[in-house]
Structure formats: structure tokens, C-alpha cells
């Protein structure tokens, strides 16, 4: 049996985010009325309730908020990547992002600066954020 990877299912709220990753740009939603940046993509600004959205390119700079190292794959398609370090990052834009650490030598700590990069997944079907020590 062919093992299918888990694919994102972009919708009108999230398409620009996934398109951005493919184009090597980290795109975030920004409220067109009050300017608040939000993530993950969603239809309403929880600060002013506007549904008008702009997209802004993020700095790709952030710091470590927390992390986890997976030693067990809960889906067979991720088994080859084990162990995998997933890092929750506080971006400079005041939102969070999860990426896979691609700097195996680094010892993580809260507040450590990191930089967001990009990587193709599932034979180029989509791209994901990855992280390096800054």
C-alpha cells in the first residue's frame, strides 16, 4: 500500500501562506483595517473583527518559545525523518510558527534566536518552514 503523506488543504484564507512558502517567502495575514498581524491564517481579526485582509512578508527572524523531539512517527511517511525536532518560534512579528529544526548540532534553549528557511515536502507538492540557529 502506498503511504500518503498528510497534505495541507489550502482554502481562500490560507492559500497565500502556502503559495508564499513555495516561493520562499514567509507571508503572514495582516488586518487591512487595524494592522494587526495574525497567524495561523483565519477569516476574522480578533482585535477589530474586520474580515479585510492584507498579506505582509515576515522578517523570518524569531526566538525559540518551546520545542519537542519526536522519536516515534505517528504516520508512516514521517518515519525516515526520525528523530525530528519541532520548534515553536516567537516571530518578530509577534506571532508563532512551528518549523522543523535543520541544525542538528545546536542545543536549544528558550529565547535562542532562529531564522526561518524553506524546504520542499512530498516531492515538491508543497513547502514547509524549517529552522536554523541565527
Amino acid at each position, binding site marked *: 500500500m502506498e503511504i500518503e*503523506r*498528510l*497534505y*495541507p*488543504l*489550502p482554502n481562500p484564507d*490560507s492559500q497565500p501562506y502556502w503559495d508564499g512558502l513555495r516561493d520562499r517567502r514567509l507571508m503572514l495575514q495582516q488586518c487591512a483595517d487595524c494592522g494587526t498581524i495574525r*497567524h*495561523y491564517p*483565519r477569516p476574522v481579526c480578533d482585535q477589530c473583527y474586520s474580515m479585510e485582509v492584507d498579506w505582509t512578508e515576515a522578517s523570518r527572524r524569531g526566538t525559540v*518559545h*518551546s*520545542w*519537542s*523531539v*519526536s*522519536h*516515534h*512517527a*505517528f*504516520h508512516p*511517511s*514521517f518515519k525516515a*525523518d526520525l*528523530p*525530528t525536532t*519541532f520548534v*515553536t518560534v516567537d516571530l518578530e512579528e509577534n*506571532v*508563532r*510558527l*512551528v*518549523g*522543523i529544526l535543520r541544525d542538528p548540532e545546536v542545543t536549544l*534553549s*528558550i529565547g535562542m534566536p532562529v531564522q526561518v528557511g524553506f524546504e520542499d*515536502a512530498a516531492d515538491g507538492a*508543497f513547502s*514547509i*518552514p524549517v529552522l536554523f540557529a541565527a
Partner: protein
Amino acid sequence: MSDGLFEKGAITGIGETAYTRGSGKSDTALPMEAALKAIADAGLSPKDIDGVVPYASGSTVAEDFITNLGLPDLRYSATTPLGGASCVAGIQAAVSAVATGLANHVLIPIGRNGYSGSRIGNRVQQMPQFRTIGEYEMPLGTLAPAQLYSHMARRHMELYGTKSEHFAKIAMNGRKHAAMNDNALRQAPMSLDDHQSSRMIADPLRLFDCCLESDGGAAVIVSASERAKDMASKPAYIMGVAEGHPDSPSAITQRPDITTLGTAKAAPRAFGMAGITHSDIDVAEIYDCFTYIVLCQLEDLGFCKKGEGGDFVSSTSFGFDGDLPLNTHGGLLSQAHIVGMNHVVELVKQLRGDAGAAQVKDARIGLVTGYGDMGDGTVAIMRS
């Protein structure tokens, strides 16, 4: 603080199937078997059941209970889609219904083949409450609760010095109680070494920090308090019940404070409604999908301050004869994962004095929690 639902309802019947890994029964048969046992325990006939709160993430709906149990006039049905917090949220819904006269006897059933049927890695992808992480986190390979929750545990450890040994104490306590319980999957003793050498699943969570996947069913009946006193079994009166949701509940990583659960919002409401303090609690059945989640709930419930969970765990004895008897049935970690309905059933047994070898002496007031969907918390406080 509003009296709200204070002692408006009581749990008047409890039922459990055998907890196994390979039930040989269907996903519909398990909640039905538990329901029939709970109805019989209450001294009722299925014809008396006029309310049902089925498990929202399960495979049975209210109509299945009408069909199988021949319910003649189901007047109230609802679901409480809070994952592992659903069962206690179901109690809140049921008490609301009996308090207002919408229904007389509400059945809250649960059951599934959580081991031999669809397992957790598959189930979560199909739940709408996981849609957000399904799109943004799962495609990276972080999809199971152990992976998602470990970010909370890691930050707690880094900020507050919480240690894996604290988690171990919670796991060992559950195992000790499971070994005293005939209907528990894990009976072999667990030492600190056993815990520390169990394989890493999602660092910092080891195998023995994770709950079991199991097959089984459990159910309770909630009736109006004025009816309860004349029923077949000793009622457990519901003094306080509440649910709470964390900010940004749809993804842990987007939450302002990832070390605080919805429990922190629910607990003051439940304690306020009950009109009691923490020192009044004789026994606590705390939802234990992961050891860390117990430690975090002890803080969010107010047994200690945020960040002091590690020290509190170290300095408190949790045995049935200890300072704060905890998960006296073995919990999800060592009895079985029955989505916390096994915790509700155990609390009622404790308050009846029917809890067997792990009976807490003179247990009069107890607390049960639910926790689910990455942060929703529910709390119920009951008395005998």
C-alpha cells in the same frame, strides 16, 4: 459567585464494561452495554431515560440509543465536543437539563475500540477541532497529542525546573492503583527506573508518560436531585461543574501562555459553585492523558501556584491513603482510556464507599476533571 447548578443534579447510576485491548465487540455494543449497566444500577428501565448526551467524537449518536434501547420519548439530546473534557462537560449539560425539567434522567454513555479499532494517529486527523493544526502543523509530521503536548511540557520544564521524575511519580501512582483494580489493563509494578528507561515518544514525554489506548465503555445517569434520594443506588450530588477553554484553543502553539489550560478558567467557577475549598477535597480523579497534563491541572485547579507543580508533586502523597488521593482506579495511564468516563465512575464509587481495595477512607467530597482537544478543561465537584 452564582450558585448556578449547585446540587441540582446527581449521578444516580454508573456502568462499565470490561476494559480490554481487543473487545471483540462493536463500537456500538460497548456504549450500549455500559448504558444498560448504568440504567440497571440506577434502578431504572431504559423507558425512563429521556435525555442522552453521546460522545461527540464517538461513532454513536442519540438515535442509536433510541433504536437499541427502545427509548419511547427522548426529549433532550446534546453533544459536548471537548475531546477528553467531553464527559464532564456532558455532566454540565445533563444537570442543566434535569435542573430545568427538560429531562428527568439523562444518560451519558461512551464506548469505543480505541485499541483494536481506529487508533489515535488516525482519529485526530478526522476531528474538526483539529482542523487548524491539521492544515498548518500535521503536514510537518507533528500530529499526535503526545507530539503536540510535549511543547507545553518542555516549556514548563525550562521555565520552572519541572523534571521527568515529577512525571514519573504521577505514572507510578496510577500504576499502583491499577494493580489494586481488577478492571485495569496494567497490573505490573512500575519503578522510577522503569519510567526513566521507557522509550522516548516525543521528548520530554516517554512511553510511560502516555496513556493507554484501550477498548471499553462506561456510562452514567444524571437525575434531578429531588428524584435521586429515592433511587436504587446512593447518589453522588453534583455541587459544582464548569468548563473552560484556553485562548486560541485550536492550536497550542498559538496560545499566549502554553503552560495554562482551560482548567484555569473552569476551576474557580466549579469551586465557587460548590462553595468549598481545596482542603475539602477527599479524592481527586484528574484526567491523565499524559503525566504532564496532571501536573499542569494541579496548578490550574489551584492546588498549587503556576510553576510549583513539580514541588507540589514531590511533596504530596497521592496514594488512596495519602494527602491527596489521586486517580484511585489507575487512570488513563494504567487502567484504560475511556475518555475520562472511567474517572467519573471511579469518583462515584469512592463517594458511595464501593471503590474496593483503593477505597479512600471516609471520602465525602471529590473532584473529577476532563481535559481535551489541546486545552479544554472541565471540572466537577461531587459529594456523597
